[in-house]
């Protein structure tokens, strides 16, 4: 192998890169396969407007799942993302409606609320040593309750600044733009910052991280605060698409967000996970739903099919990885 000529090495290395990319973004194969199947089944699937549709539909879960990626890489779990998203949207709408603050300030207030709630999760996890499952399960309930209390159960109109995030700028849908920017930011944090790298260290071996002088607790708080912030952003996109902050928004999204991250190759045991994988996971979920809709699969069978596709997509990835390791 060391005897290959320079030129061959050159091509090999590009090909190797492709192979490596595929190998480390396993669900991508599943996603592409699914898209091909859907295209065969119905040509509508591959039209530009429909693909934009899929992108828009993936955006909310994807943005939440970026935050969730931090949490899962650091060996935690965050069940409160959906509730935090709803709360953040509601805070924006409420402050805008009652305080008369300008829209952008209301938007920022909502985002901060998400970050703050997330930090509370992190605090409970790091300093009060509540398992993250319990801390965020409690917050799932608390944040949803607060949303209802604030809104008195009524949907509220969101300010223009929030609606902008859900609208289209000419032909370009803002949710996709926000997803791309948020994904880039998340990938950047995970890959290039010291905090991002320590998330992997904490998730991979918390004791080693602690002994190496990494401020584990502070980073745990940061991780959950980031998850809150990204959830809040997702909540803004969601509310923006509907021009409305609804007290029931994003109910149950936690499972979708976690699924996106895990389908993307992360391990719930921590230490492993990538933003590119998470994007693929979120797209996979959106494509499945979009495809089943277009094919008019009965809503009862739809759930069966969704489950099977998730299992098969992840299963293929697992098998491929096992083969690669032989």
């Amino acid at each position, binding site marked *: 192998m060391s005897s290959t000529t320079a030129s061959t090495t050159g091509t090999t290395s590009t090909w190797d890169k492709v192979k490596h990319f595929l190998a480390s973004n396993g669900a991508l194969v599943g996603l592409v396969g699914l898209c091909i199947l859907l295209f065969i089944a*119905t040509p*509508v699937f591959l*039209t530009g*407007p*429909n693909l934009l*549709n899929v992108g*828009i*539909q993936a955006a*909310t879960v994807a943005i939440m799942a970026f935050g969730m990626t931090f949490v899962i890489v650091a060996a935690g779990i965050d069940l409160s993302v959906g509730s935090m998203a709803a709360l953040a949207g509601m805070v924006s709408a409420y402050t805008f409606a009652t305080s008369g603050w300008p829209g952008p300030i209301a938007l920022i207030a909502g985002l901060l609320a998400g970050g703050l709630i997330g930090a509370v999760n992190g605090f409970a996890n790091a300093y009060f040593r509540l398992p993250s499952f319990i801390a965020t399960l409690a917050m799932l309930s608390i944040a949803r309750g607060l*949303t*209802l209390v604030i*809104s008195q*159960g*009524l*949907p509220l*109109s969101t300010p223009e600044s929030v609606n902008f995030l*859900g*609208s289209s700028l000419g032909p370009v849908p803002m949710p996709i733009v926000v997803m791309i920017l948020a994904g880039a930011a998340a990938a950047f944090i995970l890959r290039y910052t010291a905090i991002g790298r320590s998330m992997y260290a904490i998730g991979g071996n918390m004791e080693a991280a602690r002994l190496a002088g990494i401020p584990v607790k502070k980073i745990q708080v940061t991780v959950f605060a980031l998850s809150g912030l990204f959830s809040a952003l997702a909540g803004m996109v*969601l509310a923006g*698409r*509907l*021009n*409305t902050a*609804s*007290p*029931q*928004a*994003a*109910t*149950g999204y936690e499972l979708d967000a976690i699924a996106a991250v895990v389908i993307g190759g992360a391990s719930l045991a921590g230490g492993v996970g990538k933003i590119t994988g998470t994007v693929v996971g979120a797209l996979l979920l959106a494509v499945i*739903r*979009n495809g089943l*809709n*277009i094919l*008019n699969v*009965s*809503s*009862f069978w*739809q759930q069966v099919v969704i489950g099977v596709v998730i299992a098969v997509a992840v299963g293929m990835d697992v098998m491929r990885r096992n083969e690669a390791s032989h």
Partner: protein
Amino acid sequence: NRDGGASGSDSTADSKATGAKVVLAVSTMNNPFFVTLRDGAVAEAEAKGISLDVSDAQNDASTQSNQLANAQAIGAKAVIVNPVDSDAVVPAVQRLVSASIPIIAVDRGVTGVEVASFISSDNVAGGRQAAEALAKAMGEKGKVLILQGVPGTSASRERGQGFAEGIKAFSDIQVVGQQTANFDRTQGLNVTSNLMQAHPDVTGIFAENDEMALGAIQALGAKAGKDVMVFGFDGTPDAMEAIQDGRMVGSIAQEPAELGKLAVDQAVNAINGDPVDETVPVPVTTVTKDNVAEFLQ
């Protein structure tokens, strides 16, 4: 272009609509009410020879928004929407309207948008009727419990609001507790059991849907219909049976199948360019033992 493809082949009265694709976006299929609504629509679509795609938003406003976007992508000629949330559905509907796709709203409206047709039964009015009927069954006095639906949903809000307005008229009736059972039968059972511990002297229960009402009569056991009057909402088959048996005093029947049928009719009219009724009120009926026979097939 899109219209051109569908026309031409046939020239009978329903020519344009025959074979045309219509999407029915239902808020949730987790509730027999909407299942019945769908069945009514599907039957009518078959009769009229149109192809009806049904999607289920599972009570998630943004899923519904996705599904409405998908409807446009697959070239629907008309869209029947049963909004999860009247406010949240607005942007998605506006996109369809600006693509000149006729919209028929069913059961719930679309806030501030002029849809082609709105077919509804009035939840607030239904709540008021429920209050009156329950009060009568209780002898216009006593204590009442309210089982609320999923907090923040429009159905829960409107029915609750109507009931509250209606019950005010009866000064001897006092609402001693209102708790959510999330439109779920099991929770209706649990919450009623719990509340009866705190308020054993209650003589009336209003549930914001029949599922919770059926849970409540299960909790009351032999007391149901004798010591405690339970009133539901929706008029599902199970509830009708319970009314017949005397375990439930009544429900507000909305004739969901009729809602579905009328929605399809309006959609066909819209596609054919025939006149469309802007609003089609479907009466809500107070069902009690007196008239339940009419509703049992």
